[in-house]
């Protein structure tokens, strides 16, 4: 590989290739998993589990493309864009990506705040919570990517035991619901697969933090592991939700996974959902950190200004937007919007892949 645009990152800021697992996985699992069941079942009903598998395979393909692009070009998103499109068009696309990552962070923060408002503290003032959360995120991000990775590790470990509690809903459910019969047309399953890909959004951050990986080549398998692991978690969550809810009932449940926790019952503790939501605050935090980090990293690479200043600017934007978006309709709109945009950005990866591939061919032809 001709790593022509390799970006030098000081050794002490690098993360090991294993950590890519955490980065990819924790960015993929965010607030989406708390309520995705309803949306994927909207089109394909209980057959949506197939859609998740299709989406998972698609994500592996996209990951493969991303790695190919990165290895062919070296560097990161910014240098790739500049070398493919030139300064101006490339710059515009970079800004686009930067805003997209910012949007991801905003969506996660706002949706999680809504969950806290609906489930736990209806009287809570949004700005206070958002401010506290953003300050915390600022603290981690200014610490550098390695600190954020540490946070990712915490979030993965804290999120794991929550999976065990899927046992309770299965006990109360009808396993017959997931009888392996395909009842929907391929079209419907594909539409639902499109919806499910949105649950996996976030792995494209790899385009930004690639230069920070030590032994980038050996990180490939970890990224794929992470994506596979995420697929399995989504699959398990969906199957449990399908067993627990009847198909029509699921459409009346806004947050499938949180409502599932309601049935968890210990002799010493009821109403496990409060526990789950509290733990989820840790799962969501690295999500917001990574999004903001990547969003502010792009302008830094483009204009060579301190990341801190951009970060503060972005945080102010997220903060104001969080306060302005203040009812269910708007939040739902924000989610739909992010999903749409996210889908286009995913579709953009194959385009970039083809362009890079052509460029490489041309370059080789010119050299010989």
């Amino acid at each position, binding site marked *: 590989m001709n790593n022509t645009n390799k970006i030098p990152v000081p050794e002490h800021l690098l993360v090991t290739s294993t950590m890519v697992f955490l980065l990819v996985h924790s960015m993929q699992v965010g607030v989406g998993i708390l309520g995705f069941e309803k949306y994927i079942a909207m089109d394909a009903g209980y057959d949506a589990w197939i859609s998740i598998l299709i989406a998972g395979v698609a994500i592996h393909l996209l990951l493969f493309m991303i790695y190919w692009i990165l290895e062919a070009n070296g560097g990161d998103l910014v240098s790739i864009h500049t070398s493919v499109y030139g300064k101006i068009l490339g710059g515009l696309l970079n800004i686009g990506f930067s805003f997209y990552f910012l949007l991801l962070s905003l969506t996660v923060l706002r949706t999680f705040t809504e969950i806290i408002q609906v489930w736990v503290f209806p009287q809570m003032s949004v700005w206070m919570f958002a401010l506290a959360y953003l*300050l915390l995120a600022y603290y981690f991000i200014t610490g550098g990517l390695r600190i954020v990775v540490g946070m990712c590790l915490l979030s993965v470990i804290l999120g794991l035991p929550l999976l065990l509690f899927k046992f309770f809903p299965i006990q109360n459910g*009808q396993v*017959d619901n997931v009888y392996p019969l395909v009842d929907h047309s391929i079209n419907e399953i594909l539409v639902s697969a499109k919806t499910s890909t949105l649950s996996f959004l976030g792995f494209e951050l790899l385009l930004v933090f690639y230069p920070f990986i030590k032994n980038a080549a050996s990180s490939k398998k970890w990224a794929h592991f992470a994506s596979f692991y995420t697929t399995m978690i989504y699959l398990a969550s969906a199957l449990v939700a399908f067993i627990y809810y*009847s*198909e029509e*009932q699921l*459409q009346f449940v806004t947050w499938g996974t949180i409502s599932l926790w309601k049935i968890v*019952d210990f002799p010493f503790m009821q109403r496990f*959902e409060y526990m789950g939501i509290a733990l989820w605050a840790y799962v969501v935090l690295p999500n917001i950190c990574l999004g903001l980090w990547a969003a502010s990293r792009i302008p830094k690479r483009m204009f060579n200004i301190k990341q801190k200043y951009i970060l503060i600017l972005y945080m102010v934007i997220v903060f104001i937007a969080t306060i302005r978006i203040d009812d269910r309709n708007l939040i739902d709109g924000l989610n739909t919007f992010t999903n749409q945009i996210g889908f286009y950005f995913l579709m953009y990866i194959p385009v970039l892949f083809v362009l890079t591939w052509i460029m490489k061919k041309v370059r080789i032809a010119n050299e010989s």
Partner: protein
Amino acid sequence: MKAKKIFLIIIAFSIFLTGCLPHESVENVALVNIVGYDYVDNDLVQGTISVRHFGRSKEEIPFEQFLSFTAKSMKEISSGLESKSPRPIRLGKLSLALYDERLVTEGISEIIDVLARDPHIGRDVYLGIVKGSAKEMIETKYSENETTARFLTGIVEQNERNNFPKTNLHKFLYAYYGDGIDGFLPLLKLEENEMKMDGIGVFKEDALVHEVPYSDVFTYKLLIENFNDGTQGIEIGGKTVVMDNIGSKVKYRLYGDRNNPKFSVNIKMKGMVSEITDLTAKDTYKLTDQLEKAFEHYHEEKGKRMIKQFQEKEVDPLGLGKVLKNRKGHFDKEAWEQQYPNVPVEVNVEVQIVETGISA
């Protein structure tokens, strides 16, 4: 360095300030354990709650208070109840919701919606239909050292471990929203100051249309779920034989195609004979074959008769429609409702008597 310190202080403040939300401890709120609703007339519904007050100090003994209010909508009832309560009413610990028979016959979708929507209410709340007045049932004093709420909930919980099928808010909503399945709830009755479980009420949508009497409940549970408890006695040749269930499994089989489905419900039960009202009977274990046959016959007949009744009333608590939907696909709700009354359903019961106790 200085900037860092200031920054840390800001973070600390913002974290502690998030704690500045109105919080309530058990002494300052009225925790509702039971709610009951009674039909008054076409418009009005009477709501009754039992509230447990906890003392602020050791000397104050916790006591139970009963409040009632009559109004048109659920929200009006709750604000009316609030006006009678010394502390804010909180539904987080609700464990039993009762509805009187008349109200349930009219339909309870509005009341169920309140339970389904409120995030503070658990999904394992028991629902029950009261033959008679829910208010009276809640306000009766049953026990000296237990609250009414705990007493009533205990009865439901205990029975659902034995002869009654498991019910809760989630299971009811599952059937209420789901296609091809109808919900059911236990029927409760107040008899001479004693509360008892009196059967099962089967719903069509949100309204009660059919009742399964107490004598059929065990067979009903056999049809619905796997369990390993419960007892049932039958008459054989003038003698009563009682068998304890130590493990029953139910499987639904579906034959035929989507338009001409045929169901068979296969039950396998293991049991232990616990009582024979004939002391002269020796070598009970030699009778097991005969007893097994008798129990099989008893449950098969009862099961078939019960399903026939369901079909006549067009209710489907077994979820046969759901079985069809899950296994054959392309479920057409209206077509199914048309064909349901005439769908052939077989019941096969296989009883294995494992032991006959420690006396011969």
